[in-house]
């Protein structure tokens, strides 16, 4: 296990390094000049050159890259071209919105999807089992922003129960307000996410239900519940865990849309603004932090799978890979 962890950690570092190179190069290939965002339209060529110089975009790419890496090594995410304020503190403050949003949505989605998916599989021949499958199919087709707009119209504009968007300026020092403003965004993400999760849980459960070992266990006198608990759940959870990890990661990245719909000051809206303004340090920082988060989620998912399924431990920890 220790060797595995070490190897996994090395993989993480290498991936992150590769990602940072790709990120950096791709951004520079985009059309547009960040100096445009800094100068007013009346600017002279000298002013534009000065703007480029002040943000360092006139230096050779390798030099800019090593400069960025050097900053990263010191835990500094750089300085925004546009605001000339450090990016790091802003990322941190925006994580206060994005992390609770993503985690709460994820937990809610799992709470909905696991029982619903199980029922959809186990009771697939009943009308409500079929209905669950049908609804989840439909759910996958619904765009997040559209669902968001519907929920805003119904629960905020019409009923007036919840805010239509925004986050309290004082953040979590007003916990009740902060929670209230996250309810609709969380529900929006959770509903869309659970729709696809239900289908995974359902098919994973179906595999188990049809499996030989479950039949064997029951033939040996185990009750259905006991057989499911001891054998079924474990087996079905392995593929579900990878799917969960992917879903969690994509929720984090997909927060862009939901944060825009609900005007939340999260990482997603920071990225959107950064892109619109060619603010490379901001884009780089947000994508870097997101990449790190996605890699960590994948790492965690692998570990959990190993804990749940001893066979994976035996097969891979010896270095068979």
């Amino acid at each position, binding site marked *: 296990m220790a060797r595995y962890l070490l190897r996994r950690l090395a993989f993480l570092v290498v991936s992150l390094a590769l990602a940072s190179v790709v990120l950096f190069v791709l951004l520079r290939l985009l*059309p547009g000049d960040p100096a445009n965002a800094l100068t007013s339209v009346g600017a002279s060529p000298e002013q534009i050159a000065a*703007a480029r110089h002040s943000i360092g975009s006139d230096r050779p790419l390798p030099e800019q890259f090593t400069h960025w890496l050097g900053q990263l090594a010191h835990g500094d995410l750089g300085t925004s071209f*546009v605001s000339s304020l450090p990016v790091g503190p802003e990322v941190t403050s925006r994580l206060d919105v994005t992390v609770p949003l993503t985690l709460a949505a994820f937990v809610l989605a799992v709470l909905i999807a696991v029982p619903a998916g199980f029922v959809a599989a186990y009771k697939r021949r009943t009308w409500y089992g079929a209905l669950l499958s049908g609804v989840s199919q439909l759910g996958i087709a619904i765009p997040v922003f559209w669902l968001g*707009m519907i929920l805003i119209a119904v629960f905020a504009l019409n009923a007036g129960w919840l805010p239509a968007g*925004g986050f309290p300026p004082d953040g979590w020092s007003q916990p009740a307000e902060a929670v209230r403003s996250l309810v609709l965004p969380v529900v929006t993400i959770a509903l869309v996410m659970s729709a696809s999760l239900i289908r995974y849980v359902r098919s994973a459960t179906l595999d188990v239900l049809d499996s030989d070992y479950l039949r064997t266990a029951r033939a040996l006198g185990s009750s259905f519940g006991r057989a499911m608990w001891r054998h079924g759940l474990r087996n079905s959870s392995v593929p579900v865990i990878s799917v969960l990890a992917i879903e969690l990661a994509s929720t984090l990245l997909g927060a862009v849309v939901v944060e825009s719909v609900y005007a939340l*000051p999260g990482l997603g*809206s920071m990225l959107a*603004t950064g892109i619109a303004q060619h603010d490379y340090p901001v884009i780089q920082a947000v994508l870097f932090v997101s990449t790190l988060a996605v890699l960590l989620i994948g790492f965690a998912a692998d570990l959990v799978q190993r804990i749940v399924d001893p066979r994976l431990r035996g097969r891979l920890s010896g270095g068979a890979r």
Partner: protein
Amino acid sequence: MSIKKTSLYGTATAATLVLALTACGGSGTGGGATAGGSYDKNATVNIGSLYEPQNLDNTAGGGQGVTEALNGNVYEGLFKLTDDGKVEKLLARDYKVSGDGLTYTFTLRDGVKFHSGKAFTSQDVKYSLQKVLADDSQSARKSNLEVVKDIATPDARTVKVTLSKKSISFVYNLSYVWIINSQAKNLKTTEDGTGPYKLDKWTRGSALGLDRYAGYWGRAAGNQKVVFHYYKDATALNNALLTNAVDVVTSEQSPDALDQFKSNQNYKVNDGNSTTKLLLAFNDKAKPFTDVKVRQAVSAAIDDKKLLESVWAGYGKLIGSMVPPTDPWYEDLTKVNAYDPAHAKQLLADAGYAKGFTFTLDTPNYDPHPTAATFIKSQLAKVGITVKINTITPDEWYTKVYKNHDFTATLQEHVNDRDLVWYGNPDFYWGYDDKQVTQWVEQAEEASTTAEQTALLKKVNEKTAQDAASDWLYLYPQIVVASSKLSDYPLNGLNSQFYAYDIKKKG
């Protein structure tokens, strides 16, 4: 000067899914006028805006949002530009101009303190002016103020500024210069001004709060707190207004949303005068727009009124020139080159284009340009002109059109007041070159009285209109939508300023 480069998320798309609100008919009266009755002196006014500051320093790229939130509210100038475009004394108690018009002597107001507690002196004026003129300054007014040759401070209450040449707009330009404590630090995230509010808290990406400053030299603000809430798109902003998360929207950008406010007595929709002009800018140095008749023909062939109706549903104004009603040299020139397709055809024939011609229209990809381009295309088709629409990003526009002058015609919005003077610069992107106009613009700036300046710029106005230097399609509306509990808010919001200190809110 500044042309709006990006409307970030400007396209507030799709149908607003707003369920019917009770229509009560009859909107209130009075607009920003003083509401009768009592109001809450300790109220918090929540303001919704699409323009978040980049940072809090207007000489370091703070952008339009920092002007909106801090100008006049937190920082004050020697002079103030009122909401109807007049220049009034603020931190300057008085001033004298020397006979040759080159030396301005300002006497400063007594008893003014910065929010940090330090007394306001002539040193601070000198420092603030130098900050705008510094090499790394990104102030939009830097080029206008470069006539400043020397700043002397004979005593704590007196500032003497010497100019390199006469500049009648000097005092007006000073209304853009924030007076900052010369010892202040970290102005990108904090402030030290003299205004009626001090900064409470700025949460990036979300909100900026201001608190009434107890030591203010003037009349105290009519409310205790002001919070600017920032939104990325117009729909979210309108939703915030509908759910009372904000009390007023500084500049409504979504005409589709207006009906729901107009039909609800809890809101008031105010139609003010903006300074933003939508231009069909010809390249006056590129064929066929080198020919004045062709420019006049195109101008006369487009029904601006119908365009404005379709884009803004009756809001906004036709202008017929570069000058909005809040500029001192405004006059109604809508009759010059007014809509007249028959006359347009005649002009085209006179210019040798009886069978019309084809040109490419470089069109920024955000609203309202694509709509306007399609409209222009269909209008010009009726007089035999074929328009090829070339959709470009704001970046491309900046490089291709603005910097390289590589275009035949383009669409663009110009946001500032008093920007008629660009027609006096033959090197500006639209290439209008008339020696007489250039001379009038120069003379106007060196005029001794504002009356003289106004008379000259009126001539410029008329000449450029007759020459159809550009086609000024319409003046954007400046729509402030507010809760009917509010009164005394600014209506025109010139150059993005939004004075919040007079706003009163009923309890």
